[in-house]
């Protein structure tokens, strides 16, 4: 089996940066959205839930196509940034945020629904402000939801292919990630290198899921 080349290593680096950025953005934006979905009685809730879940069923090329158009120089996001975001790392992060959204939002929403408002009300009655109560009571009780969200969001972003190809192209060092690198290797019949990266991703994904299931078992949610 051939060793990984510099190009492969830089793709690994891009992949890790992309996944980390995507998960961070989704945690910050997704927490309030998941909280809203868990507790709202609004009639818009099913519509928002459907939009959040869309990337699960949509062909990545469809999602990638629309994001590409939006990011381009004449698209709304491209105009906002006053330049084309297509085929850039930033553009890739934006695309990944949409693509991995359900994998972060849904575990958080589930955890918030399981925890309910009761512990928060108790915390407020003990003089904790809303932010304080969120940090010291809700987040720890919903910890399992956060771990699932982080792990699934990270792993899913690492594994994306169609959207990355549509939006990012495969520019080494900028938008070439592991999954597209495998494709490139296969295109030129470098099966050994494709195998090395594939095996790495297979092992990584398995270990990540194993960790989630073990953590779930070790730290179940106790709702009193």
């Amino acid at each position: 089996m051939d060793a990984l080349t510099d190009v492969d290593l830089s793709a690994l680096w891009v992949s890790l940066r992309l996944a980390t950025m995507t998960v961070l953005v989704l945690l910050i934006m997704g927490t309030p959205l998941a909280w809203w979905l868990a507790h709202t009685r609004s009639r818009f809730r099913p519509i928002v839930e459907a939009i959040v879940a869309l990337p699960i069923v949509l062909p990545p090329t469809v999602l990638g196509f629309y994001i590409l158009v939006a990011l381009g120089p004449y698209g709304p996001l491209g105009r906002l940034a006053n330049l084309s975001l297509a085929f850039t790392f930033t553009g890739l992060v934006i695309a990944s945020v949409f693509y991995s959204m359900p994998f972060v939002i849904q575990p958080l929403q589930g955890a918030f629904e399981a925890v309910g408002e009761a512990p928060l009300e108790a915390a407020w009655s003990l003089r904790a402000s809303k932010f304080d109560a969120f940090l010291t009571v809700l987040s720890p009780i919903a910890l399992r939801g956060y771990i699932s969200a982080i792990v699934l969001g990270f792993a899913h972003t690492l594994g994306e292919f169609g959207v990355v190809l549509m939006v990012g192209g495969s520019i080494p060092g900028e938008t070439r990630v592991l999954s597209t690198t495998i494709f490139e290797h296969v295109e030129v019949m470098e099966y050994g290198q494709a195998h090395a990266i594939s095996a790495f991703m297979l092992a990584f994904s398995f270990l990540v899921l194993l960790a989630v299931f073990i953590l779930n078992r070790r730290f179940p949610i106790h709702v009193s």
Partner: protein
Amino acid sequence: MSRLLARFNIRFPAFHLNVDVDVPMSGITAIFGPSGSGKTTLLRCLAGLERAPEGFMQVGEDLWQDESRGYCLPLYERPIGYVFQEPRLFPHYNVRSNLLYGYNRISPKERRIGMEQVVDILGIGHLLERRIHKLSGGEQQRVAIGRALLTSPKLLLLDEPLASLDLLRKQEVLPFIRQLHEHLRIPVLYVSHGLTEILQLADRVILLKEGHIVGTGTLNEMFTALDFRGQLGPHRIGAILDARVIHHDPQYGLTQLKFNNHSLFVPIQPVPVGQTVRVHIFSNDISLVLGHTGVPTSILNILEATVVEIREINQSSVDVVLDIGTPLVASITRKSLMSLGLKPGQRLFAHIKAVALNEELVE
């Protein structure tokens, strides 16, 4: 004496709460009523957890809510202790950290109630290092009460804190609620639909029905009033009195109690002189005697009383409402009523055949 004033008008899809509360900030006030009468909703409004669109609330001099000016103090800025129906302890902390959660969030000069005192009153010293899910229901509820007390609240709101407990656990927690009030002097609003609990704990009752307050008064006034008579089964209440122990007589095995210048003798009680005990008299245990009794009698407890009102009960019996400084209700036969010729304003003597103390009433 400062007062709690509150007006709430709030509509839900299937329920409408419209109340006007005015109670002194002292003692234990029970919010009593059947399930679905709005007791918990009222308590949540008082805490600021439900925000009534037409709401007003003032505690002593402090304004907590005035919706006419769009003002509502959030719960975390109100000096309230709230104990929910379920303990709602934080599972990721142990008992000690749960107790200290609120304590650490008030300024040191506000801390009138300390850890030792609370642990002592609630008997939870041996639990401090335990995880929450290792506690029994009664222990959890005691910790929840302690956690609320450690915020040194000016007002304690208890929402059926015994509802989730079985009878044995109820007996475990009930005395603590009485004690904490005796020791800490925090006014308590206590939601319950359990009559026994209220008879044992409350000084005052707010009676709720279908989202409206149908009566407010002292425990004795409320439970001797007509509205309650139907609910009490065969043991109808004659009076519920808080009397002070003034003397023990070991020779005859009697304890002498005093209230409103009246004396009562009960079998000797292990209660120190000067302490107050709650006394229950059932209406069937009272007989009425006209004129001063030169007649010797075996009855020890004889109270001078004035007839206030005669209430029809059924074909054979009537209730005579007496004034002994507070209402006292005697159930007598219609035949006796006729032969004595009782009418309002008349002075007479009530012979009390039996007196039950609070502790003996426990189901």
